[in-house]
């Protein structure tokens, strides 16, 4: 088995790459469309290890009186600096409550009001309280509720710890994947009528990130190599509060519960950046509850003014929770306290927490429509790997967990319907799979004499991205990065592989992950260079203004083997909210009335 591509190709109706929140929700959705459809969840980790597990603060959906779908839509669209497709946002906010209630019925242990109803908390950029939470381990509880619920569906087969290396595309349709079973090293084609990418983000392209080790842009690269465009890749979210050195996230919920951001003088510096005036209690869409892009940019300006602190791992500011008291911290933010105690030896009940902006989320991703369908027939995508787009130029905290559910379910339904068309497998698939096996052997498993180290290439890529594609960017630095990434890709061809064994070969997977990340890095740099304006999380020092004339449009970047990628633009869909000024901490003139 080990040395030959199995001639028996397992076959499924719908195959998911990735078993996190979006993947599991999609898998269940397929089973709900038709329990006879066979579903395969192919994941490089056991599903409950997926990075959804690390999400902390909450998940947004309108549920309380006094809130409205239009207000959630407006917050999302203005938060995204008008780069969101408004038809997508409207259906997102509309379907969000049903999905969240469904997860409640599946056992998610949401925090509750005294009367037993689901509790909500404030969140950054949201004008109303609509963020559901399970203390500050919301992603963990959502993932485990979804995973455990998925176990009751007999039609869901799992390929745990299988690493996907290629999409099988023939006759203009995706028809399966090639994957490595990590435990045995077996290289196997798995065919399917529909494939859904649910592999999450790509934070590891940067050196300092909240993202887990597994976040390497796998699905983005798989789609890109198959000719599917990536959308809005220049929009990289920095979360304003990560722990120095580890990059561990300190949730926005800590500010929603009343935490302050202080510079080295103990001053709530956000008041200097058009984010409102400081109040003792949290005010929605103001100060510490502003959007993440603006808060991370404010940190950089404080750094320029010399008003940050300096530690062994670079500049930082303070997050102050001490005035909240032990009771609030222990009931609403127990994980924050646990993380600070365990990883920083700091008790937030009595001490200030050192924090700095940290790469957190990719607004961009595989280009999909509102059903989760990509331009490639049979290929769908949902979750962070995808760009629908509801997040525009800056995602609001607590929209992404809900996005997993809403668009995971939609992609699952669309993929199920597509699979029911029952198109036959093309004859060339087997040969294509055999070619992929040969490639893996030639380039990695049997390769000798490589000279470049995986760790060195990765570190150089990360340093390049931080320097050129960070919170503030310039054309000159991006051009340098363009050359650096191209050179790194070329050097990757000479990567050294010491480990030629078949059993759980993590040097092989590290090399493959690096190759995925280099594709993502190329796409980010290319899009960032082409967008000569500043909008949301994409800030060009050489083009500081938003330019709706030219750039109220999504970037679509396509892979061209042996050449620079091609960047094109697709107009943003505007329905009811014409582009306006983003206003925080003061009354807006163009906000929806009533």
């Amino acid at each position, binding site marked *: 088995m080990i040395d030959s591509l199995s001639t028996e190709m397992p076959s499924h109706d719908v195959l998911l790459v990735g078993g996190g929140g979006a993947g599991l929700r999609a898998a269940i959705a397929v089973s709900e469309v038709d329990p006879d459809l066979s579903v395969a969840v192919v994941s490089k*980790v056991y599903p409950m290890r997926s990075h959804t597990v690390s999400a902390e603060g909450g998940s947004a959906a309108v549920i309380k009186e006094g809130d409205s779908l239009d207000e959630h839509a407006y917050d999302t669209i203005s938060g995204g600096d008008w780069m969101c497709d408004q038809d997508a946002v409207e259906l997102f906010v509309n379907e969000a409550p049903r999905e969240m209630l469904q997860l409640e019925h599946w056992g998610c*242990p949401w*925090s509750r*009001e005294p009367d037993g109803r689901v509790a909500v908390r404030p969140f950054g950029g949201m004008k109303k309280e609509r963020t559901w939470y399970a203390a500050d381990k919301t992603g963990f509880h959502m993932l485990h509720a979804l995973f455990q619920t998925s*176990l009751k569906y007999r039609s869901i087969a799992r390929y745990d710890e299988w690493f996907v290396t290629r999409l099988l595309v023939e006759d203009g349709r995706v028809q399966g994947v090639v994957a490595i079973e990590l435990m045995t090293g077996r290289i196997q084609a798995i065919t399917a009528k529909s494939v859904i990418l649910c592999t999450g983000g790509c934070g590891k392209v940067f050196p300092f990130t909240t993202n887990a080790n597994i976040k390497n842009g796998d699905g983005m690269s798989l789609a890109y190599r198959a000719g599917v465009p990536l959308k809005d890749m220049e929009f990289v979210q920095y979360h304003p509060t990560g722990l120095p050195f580890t990059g561990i996230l300190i949730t926005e919920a800590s500010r929603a519960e009343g935490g302050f951001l202080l510079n080295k003088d103990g001053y709530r510096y956000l008041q200097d950046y058009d984010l409102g005036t400081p109040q003792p209690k949290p005010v929605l869409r103001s100060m510490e509850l502003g959007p993440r892009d603006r808060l991370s940019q404010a940190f950089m300006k404080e750094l320029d003014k010399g008003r940050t602190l300096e530690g062994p791992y670079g500049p930082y500011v303070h997050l102050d929770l001490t005035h909240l008291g032990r009771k609030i911290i222990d009931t609403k933010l127990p994980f924050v306290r646990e993380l600070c105690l365990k990883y920083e030896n700091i008790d937030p009940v009595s001490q200030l927490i050192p924090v700095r902006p940290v790469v957190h989320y990719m607004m961009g991703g595989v280009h999909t429509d509102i059903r989760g369908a990509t331009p490639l027939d049979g290929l769908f995508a949902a979750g962070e790997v995808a760009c629908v787009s509801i997040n525009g130029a800056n995602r609001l905290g607590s929209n992404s967990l809900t996005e997993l559910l809403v668009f995971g379910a939609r992609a699952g339904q669309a993929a199920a319907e597509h699979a029911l068309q029952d198109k036959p497998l093309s004859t060339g698939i087997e040969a294509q799979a055999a070619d992929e096996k040969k490639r893996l052997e030639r380039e990695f498993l049997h390769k000798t004499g490589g000279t470049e180290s995986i760790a060195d290439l990765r570190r150089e890529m990360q340093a390049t991205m931080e320097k050129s594609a960070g919170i503030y960017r310039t054309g000159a630095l991006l051009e340098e990065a363009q050359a650096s990434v191209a050179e790194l890709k070329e050097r990757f061809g000479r990567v050294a592989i010491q480990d030629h*064994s078949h059993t759980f070969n993590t040097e092989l997977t590290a090399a493959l992950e690096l190759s995925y990340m280099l594709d993502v890095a190329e796409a980010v740099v290319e899009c960032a260079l082409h967008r000569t304006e500043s909008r949301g999380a994409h800030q060009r020092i050489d083009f500081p203004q938003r330019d709706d004339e030219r750039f109220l449009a999504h970037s679509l970047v396509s892979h061209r083997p042996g050449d620079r990628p091609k960047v094109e633009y697709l107009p943003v869909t505007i329905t009811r909210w014409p582009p306006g000024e983003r206003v925080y901490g003061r009354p807006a003139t163009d906000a929806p009335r009533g």
Partner: protein
Amino acid sequence: MAETITIEVARYRPEQEGEPTLQSYEVPFNKDWVVLDALNYIKDHVDGSLSFRWSCRMGVCGSCGMTVDGEPKLTCATFLSHYHPGPIRVEPLRNFPVVRDLVIEMTDFMEKLQSVKPWIVREDDPAPAEGEFLQTPEQLDQYKQFSMCINCMICYAACPVYGLDPQFVGPAAIALAQRYNLDSRDQGEQERMDVLSQHEGIWGCTFVGECTEVCPKNVDPAGAIQQYKLAATQDWFKSFLMPWSKR
């Protein structure tokens, strides 16, 4: 030269060697580093063939459980400084077959988890649109701690019963069964009881409580097992004394 510390790592590559061996590596001693950072240093700079699982590095994904100086630990939450001046021995979790190096085989747990029906069981199935099931904070507290299990396998590595009898459902799976039994939204306790009572293993648990002691998330599987034993005993007496009563 900066200070270093010795890490003795259990190596096992089944395609090359029949038995695990220990290999020593010198790594920089950095007070901010956890054991996992040292392993990554080795992988990146010394020996790319060393295999281990890890992902979140914040103690919530459950991937990086290993035996550190004889104790089962999450290596992302275990500081080198705790073992200074070393050496530190890192081995795979005990009580599991070893796939390679520090990677254990855990398919057995995955099957056991599924067998205890860790999902909400309802006789009725109201549509989500009808609204949430009400659950007060006090009702949430009944099962909350059991819902904190990250499936890291550390309790299985510490469990003397599982070590002797691999048929034993084990601490985490029983804690998760109890997590649903105690959830006010659930109606599946009897179904789970039927599953758990099929095997004798649970009665072998002597309430020494190693599982609870080692749990990095302060879950109390030993408590879950005792609660289950009590319920099962009552159930048995009930069926014996009142055979007419509906179970």
